């Protein structure tokens, strides 16, 4: 295992310590239970926005804590949901009296832990709403399964919902907006290489030199199918096609196009993918109104990418453009 780490057991804690030191102007980091909270939390009268999940997806979620986005993030162990007591403390830390929104990616572990946390918080008199993101079209949706994974749309939802909360919208409105963003967005991802969970010490899966995985999630899990390596153009077709067909996105739609790197993919490739995506969307009459290209929701050092499309309207554009001041996303501030 080739990583810049010390003891695998300490990766999350030591990395958080570095993050805290690097961004002391934006956040405070509580070590135990672990959470990353806005330096000025709780903001009185503002809905608190909490998200969390396993570590290894950086900058998500700690890198999105700050003005205009998250109030607090709960990092779990690598690829492992954080725990209810941790979420409870984080919820308390950002309750400014207007309640707290939990943004939860749809994984059994996350759901179960967040459910427990919300129960505990409500017992302590804090109003909590939970919204589940489940935008991964690689997974068949069904009432009888765990449903779709929450992936790329989570980042976009956190930005947009964070802006709405900053404007003073109330908990119900913010939760409703979050559901709407989730409903309007779809994602699909692929991997060129596996990643290695530090505590496991070896790659989660093995991929041949001329193979790739299509339909992966963000936890180093294998995808829906293993296929021969293809050109960026074909890969974009394989990802964007199902994304477009699922919502479906139609000619005339205005979208935010998000090309996300999985952690080990250099920018030169991500922009090349964006170039292919732009051509494909142009051909379908879909207009890219906003874009995001970079590694924002990652799987450790995995090489690969995901493509997320979010259908926009004027309100979503305005909220996307609103100032954001976090370690991972920053504009207008």
């Amino acid at each position, binding site marked *: 295992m080739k990583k810049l780490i010390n003891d695998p057991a300490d990766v999350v804690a030591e990395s958080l310590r570095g993050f805290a030191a690097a961004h002391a102007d934006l956040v405070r980091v509580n070590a135990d*239970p672990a959470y990353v909270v806005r330096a000025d939390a709780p903001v009185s009268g503002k809905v608190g926005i909490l998200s969390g999940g*396993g570590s290894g997806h950086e900058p998500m979620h700690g890198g999105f804590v700050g003005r205009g986005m998250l109030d607090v993030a709960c990092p*779990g*162990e*690598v*690829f*492992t*949901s*954080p*725990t*209810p*007591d*941790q979420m409870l403390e984080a919820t308390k830390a950002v309750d400014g009296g207007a309640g707290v929104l939990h943004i939860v990616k749809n*994984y*059994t*572990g996350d759901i*179960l*832990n967040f*459910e*427990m946390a919300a129960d505990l918080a409500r017992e302590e008199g804090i109003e909590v709403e939970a919204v589940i993101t489940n935008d*991964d079209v*690689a*997974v*068949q949706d069904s009432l*009888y*399964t*765990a449903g779709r*994974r929450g992936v790329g749309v989570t980042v976009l939802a956190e930005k947009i919902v964070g802006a709405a909360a900053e404007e003073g919208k109330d908990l119900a409105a913010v939760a409703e907006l979050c559901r709407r963003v989730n409903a309007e967005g779809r994602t699909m991802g692929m991997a060129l290489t596996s990643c290695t*969970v530090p*505590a*496991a010490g070896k790659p*989660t*899966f093995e991929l041949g030199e001329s193979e790739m995985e299509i339909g992966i*999630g963000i*936890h*180093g*899990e*294998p995808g*829906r*199918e293993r296929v021969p390596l293809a050109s960026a153009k074909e890969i974009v077709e394989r990802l964007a096609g199902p994304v477009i067909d699922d919502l479906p996105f139609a000619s005339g739609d205005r979208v935010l196009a998000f090309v996300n790197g999985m952690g080990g993919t250099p920018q030169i490739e991500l922009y090349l993918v964006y170039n292919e995506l732009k051509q494909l969307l142009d051909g379908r009459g879909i207009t890219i109104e906003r874009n995001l290209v970079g590694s924002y929701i990652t799987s450790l050092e995995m090489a690969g990418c995901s493509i997320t499309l979010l259908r926009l309207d004027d309100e979503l554009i305005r909220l996307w453009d609103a100032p954001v001041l976090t370690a991972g996303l920053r504009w207008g501030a």
Partner: protein
Amino acid sequence: MSDGAITVEEVVAWLRDFAAVMAQEKDALTALDAAIGDGDHGINMDRGMRAVMERVDAATPADVPALMKTVGMALISKVGGAAGPLYGTLFLQFGSAAGPDGLTPDGWAACLAAGVAGVRARGKAELEDKTMVDALQPAADAVGAALGEGASFADALARGADAAEEGARATIPLVARKGRASYLGERSAGHQDPGATSSAHLVRCAARTWAA
């Protein structure tokens, strides 16, 4: 040991054995999870059971309900993922069902059944969804049935452990409908479920603890 009252010490011994097995099986469980999940189940269970034993060894609760509450809360606050709340609930419900007045083999069986019901309520998994339920439910059923047929506690637990292991093995051909493995769809078939495997270990540890 006799078929009489079950002591806190025995329950602790069971947990200690389970913790040891989780440490030993850590890589194997993680490998199972790598095939159809995210490759952390062994790591999660080992981390959780270490935390459990630390807390239990620091101050062993006086009765089984208190002990199991400590165990459940330790798992919930230290494991995370799906296994944390599910195993946490298993032990919490086990403890709630135990009551303060000592535990008989029948009581133990009822506690396990309550724990399994708790897991099912929390995770909403049915049999054959390819989860820990596929090991736990047959185990609880087998232990109850054996005691009903007059088997000794040791024999009943052995039959429970057999049933759990068979249940775990039977997850191999299944297509997962719950948990991370469900994201793989058809590709989840052909691999044994990691949670069912750890659960089978849990029951086998009980059989070993109360054997002979």
